[in-house]
């Protein structure tokens, strides 16, 4: 994968030297980079690995999942704060994740924590269990776990 | 030139003595030392004829030219008398000391001090420049200090030395102030120039101050009441020292000063009353106290005090002659001065001899206590003879020189009674009575010396050593002095014509050559009042001496028992105790107190002057508008700040400080200061981190248990400080007087090639500040490292460990 990036940069640089006679410009480099992307996308099977920008698309997908979750739960929490009577039942629950690497667990935790109504309190020393504080355990635990699964899947698409 | 050199010779000798002392083994070092005074005496004596003919010698070496301070020597009749006394008596004292001091003593040190003193004393009497005089004046105090404490392991020696040093140096400092005033008046430090021009300045208020200050110097040095208290304690010095410094020479420096300054200050009523009054009173006090002494040396010390008083008073009386300048009528008053000079010489001879006698007694018997002594005449005939001559001369009996000068003293007093000037009438009579009473006591103690020591029964068990006559060598010096005592009685006019005449001319320049300035001294002058007074003294004195055990009780009567010494000691103790008390009162060691002092000073000085000068004119017209959000932020900051005071935990306070810091960063943004906002943010964070780093180790805050009153006081101080800062700032904002220089920096790009003005100021216009600021930071960094890592091994003994 880094090989693809290096190659892409090389193409861009080559492009730049080919196009510009006397002056070096960033815009030319960028254009060369785009050209490189195209070339590598066509050729990536020869490397025996995935096209390296595929992750980008997956990441963007993850981002959108996140933003939608964020908006939904934000509204829920804002509503809870603003409701004349506090009707919440907060609590801590345990969630065992299928994710393995540090980066994956971190990403999951960040996303979960960013969405309102839940905070990751602890990660077990082994890194496979998250302890989560939820704003309203009784009502949203099921929803939260669904959200977690959603995130797990999206994350794995990016990282694996 | 040679005269100047004569001052230096003793100093030079003093430098070499320690080296010689190390080299020689079998010869007393004194034999080398004695060469110096003898040579100098001969040298100075060679000037007698020319000086008697009216010559004077002057020589100047420039020293601190810009200040008019020169090394100017001046030899005239007055200085010559003193110079001869210094070297003459000096020679005899050293001769005496050779036998008196054993080789076990640290003689090197002794003679160094003695030579230092001799040089200093010569310097005093030969100086023309006041500053040079002062130099040597203090040097005599110092060498005297060293000599008194020669046996410094004795507590009493140290005490005596300290006392003399404190009193004489203090007087010296006063005198210095007086000298400087004289210079300010006349523009010169030269005595001769001042004498020449002083007439124009006598009406200035400064003139009087200068006079009193100079007199303070003279009185302290010459042990005049109430400064005489140092002299008896100075007797802790080895006897040769007492004979030399504390009878013959140093104590006469004050007399010299008065004589020297008579042409300047004489003729003033204040001078007359002060000098003669203090002199007479000292005479009375000294003689009265001498009688009760049981230590022979102490007795001599008090006698010296009284004799110095006598001489002093004579100079006072003699100054009257200058009141209207020269006239044939006023010459008569100069006789007092003549008597003073004459008695000065006489006193040196008989008192020197007496001190040496006491030294011999002490040396041979191991005690000087009159109550233990008696009957020494039998085995110390020569010593007895000398003592007799000395004492009788002191008592004013013929055929000894003391008689002559004593008679002249009485005559002067009688003359003074008739004085028209200064409306002396009744005071003159008082003077006369005082003098006469004092003379009676003088007679009594003189008799005590002779009779209680040498007559009566000898009790061997009361003395420490077996008794015998002193060695020949020890007797030489006092004998010579005794011969002078007798000799001067028979040939007084030799002294009068060759030594006193030029001295009189020096003191009364306007009387030079006047008829009767130098009278013909006669032992027999008919039955005049003075003689009757002497006879009275003898009769009453004899009676009092005989009946002494019946009236000794008066010394225990309250006012007479009171002792200035006790007062002095109490004063010092009180001074130390009081100082300790006061210092402890405000130097408690609490940081808080110190800060309170500082803020109080700030509030009083700055706040007070704001109110006093009314510098609180405000002008709010130029204020920028406030947005609501800015106001709210300021409100938040105010809240955070106030909350810091009441914060119950340390971390809360730290957090609140963080709020302040970050909010200030926002204010910097509002005020268009991006660089500041950036710096503030980072610095605040790092500071907070540091607080937390150090925080862990500290215990949780305890509630301040300060009293409510303290809290209110603190609050008032804090509020006042805050108010003053604000008021002053508002006043400044309303009173901008100039445009700032910072307009210049707006050309930063042209000048320094940078578009960020602040950065160009920091990196270029004021790069030096930045460089140093980096250094400050660096020092702090390395300093923190050192502070934590350097732990010296030894632990707090509260003592320097390195």
């Amino acid at each position, binding site marked *: 994968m880094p090989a693809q990036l290096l190659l892409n940069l090389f193409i861009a640089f080559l492009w730049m030297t080919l196009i510009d006679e006397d002056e070096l410009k960033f815009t030319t480099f960028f254009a060369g980079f785009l050209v490189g992307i195209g070339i590598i996308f066509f050729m990536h099977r020869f490397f025996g690995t995935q096209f390296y920008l595929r992750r980008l698309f997956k990441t963007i997908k993850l981002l959108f999942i996140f933003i939608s979750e964020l908006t939904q739960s934000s509204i829920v929490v804002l509503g809870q704060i603003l409701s004349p009577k506090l009707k919440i039942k907060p609590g801590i629950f*345990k969630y065992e994740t299928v994710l393995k690497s540090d980066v994956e667990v971190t990403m999951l935790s960040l996303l979960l924590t*960013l969405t309102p109504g839940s905070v990751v309190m602890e990660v077990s020393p082994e890194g496979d269990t998250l302890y989560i504080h939820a704003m309203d355990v009784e009502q949203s635990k099921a929803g939260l776990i669904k959200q977690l699964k959603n995130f797990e899947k999206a994350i794995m698409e990016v990282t694996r | 030139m040679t005269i100047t050199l004569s001052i230096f010779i003793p100093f030079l000798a003093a430098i070499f003595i320690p080296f010689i002392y190390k080299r020689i083994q079998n010869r007393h070092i004194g034999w080398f030392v004695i060469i110096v005074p003898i040579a100098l005496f001969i040298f100075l004596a060679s000037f007698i004829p020319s000086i008697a003919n009216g010559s004077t010698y002057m020589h100047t070496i420039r020293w601190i030219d810009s200040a008019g301070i020169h090394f100017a020597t001046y030899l005239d009749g007055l200085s010559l008398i003193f110079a001869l006394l210094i070297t003459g008596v000096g020679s005899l004292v050293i001769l005496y000391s050779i036998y008196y001091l054993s080789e076990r003593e640290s003689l090197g040190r002794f003679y160094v001090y003695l030579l230092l003193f001799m040089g200093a004393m010569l310097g005093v009497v030969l100086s023309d420049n006041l500053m040079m005089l002062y130099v040597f004046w203090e040097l005599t105090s110092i060498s005297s200090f060293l000599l008194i404490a020669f046996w410094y392991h004795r507590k009493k020696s140290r005490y005596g030395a300290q006392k003399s040093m404190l009193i004489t140096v203090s007087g010296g400092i006063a005198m210095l102030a007086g000298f400087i005033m004289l210079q300010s008046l006349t523009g010169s430090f030269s005595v001769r120039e001042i004498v020449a021009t002083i007439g124009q300045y006598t009406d200035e208020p400064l003139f009087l101050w200068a006079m009193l200050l100079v007199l303070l110097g003279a009185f302290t040095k010459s042990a005049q009441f109430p400064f005489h208290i140092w002299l008896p304690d100075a007797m802790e010095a080895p006897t040769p020292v007492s004979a030399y410094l504390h009878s013959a020479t140093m104590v006469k420096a004050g007399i010299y000063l008065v004589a020297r300054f008579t042409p300047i200050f004489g003729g003033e009523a204040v001078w007359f009353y002060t000098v003669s009054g203090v002199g007479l009173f000292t005479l009375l006090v000294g003689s009265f106290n001498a009688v009760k002494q049981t230590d022979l040396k102490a007795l001599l010390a008090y006698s010296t005090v009284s004799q110095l008083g006598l001489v002093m008073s004579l100079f006072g009386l003699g100054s009257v002659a200058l009141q209207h300048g020269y006239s044939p009528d006023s010459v008569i008053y100069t006789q007092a001065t003549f008597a003073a000079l004459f008695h000065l010489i006489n006193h040196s001879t008989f008192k020197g001899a007496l001190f040496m006698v006491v030294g011999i007694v002490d040396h041979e018997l191991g005690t000087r206590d009159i109550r233990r002594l008696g009957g020494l005449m039998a085995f110390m005939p020569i010593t007895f003879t000398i003592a007799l001559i000395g004492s009788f001369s002191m008592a004013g009996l013929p055929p000894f020189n003391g008689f002559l000068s004593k008679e002249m003293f009485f005559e002067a007093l009688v003359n003074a009674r008739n004085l028209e000037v200064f409306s002396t009438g009744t005071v003159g009579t008082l003077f006369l009575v005082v003098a006469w009473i004092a003379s009676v006591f003088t007679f009594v103690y003189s008799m005590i010396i002779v009779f209680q020591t040498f007559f009566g029964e000898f009790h061997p068990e009361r003395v420490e050593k077996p008794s015998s006559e002193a060695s020949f060598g020890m007797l030489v010096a006092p004998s010579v002095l005794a011969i002078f005592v007798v000799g001067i009685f028979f040939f007084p006019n030799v002294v009068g014509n060759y030594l006193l005449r030029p001295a009189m001319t020096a003191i009364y320049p306007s009387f030079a050559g006047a008829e009767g300035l130098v009278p013909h001294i006669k032992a027999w002058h008919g039955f005049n009042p003075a003689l009757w007074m002497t006879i009275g003294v003898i009769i009453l004195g004899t009676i009092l001496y005989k009946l002494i055990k019946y009236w000794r009780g008066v010394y225990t009567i309250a006012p007479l028992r009171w002792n200035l010494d006790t007062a002095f000691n109490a004063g010092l103790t009180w001074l130390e105790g009081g100082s300790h008390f006061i210092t402890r009162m405000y130097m408690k060691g609490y940081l808080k107190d110190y800060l309170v002092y500082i803020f109080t000073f700030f509030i009083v000085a700055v706040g007070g002057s704001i109110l006093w000068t009314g510098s609180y004119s405000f002008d709010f017209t130029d204020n920028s508008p406030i947005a609501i959000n800015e106001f709210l932020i300021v409100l938040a900051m105010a809240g955070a700040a106030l909350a810091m005071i009441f914060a119950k935990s340390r971390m809360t306070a730290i957090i609140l400080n963080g709020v302040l810091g970050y909010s200030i960063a926002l204010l910097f943004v509002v005020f268009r200061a991006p660089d500041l906002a950036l710096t503030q943010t980072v610095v605040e964070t790092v500071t907070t981190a540091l607080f937390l780093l150090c925080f862990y180790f500290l215990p949780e805050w305890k509630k301040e248990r300060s009293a409510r009153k303290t809290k209110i006081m603190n609050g008032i101080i804090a509020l006042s400080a805050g108010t003053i800062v604000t008021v002053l700032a508002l006043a400044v904002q309303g009173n901008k007087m100039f445009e700032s220089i910072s307009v210049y920096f707006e050309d930063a790009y042209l000048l320094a090639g940078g578009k960020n003005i602040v950065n160009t100021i920091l990196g270029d216009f004021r790069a030096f500040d930045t460089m140093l600021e980096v250094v400050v930071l660096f020092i702090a960094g390395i300093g923190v490292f050192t502070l934590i890592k350097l732990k010296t091994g030894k632990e707090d003994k509260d003592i320097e460990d390195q």
Partner: protein
Amino acid sequence: MSVNEIGEFVGALLILLGGIASVISVFGLIRLPDVYTRSHAATKSSTLAVLLTLSGTFLYFLFREQFVSVRVLLGIVFVFLTAPVAGHLLVRAAYRSKVKLADISTEDELHDVLYKIESENDGTSDKS
């Protein structure tokens, strides 16, 4: 209205929304019963607020001055990255420093795990 003006308006609107979100979240900070619930209000709602504001700012500069502010973008990424971490750390610190959960809390699956092991540790250290 030109495209730029619309862009600017959207930017300002986002900022205003951010302001409102911020006030609401601070309302939560006052209102909610314990530090854990407050942390929800603080870390998330205010993160949302700042994200809205920064996005608005980004848009504003983009449309107003045709200026792509990398710093603002970086700022957004940064807040995204750090805000949850900060929240997580704080809540953990609170729990480990034994700040009590509010009474209305219903379950606590962490308590036993954390303190059972700790007391075991204490036991071993006593023996040694």
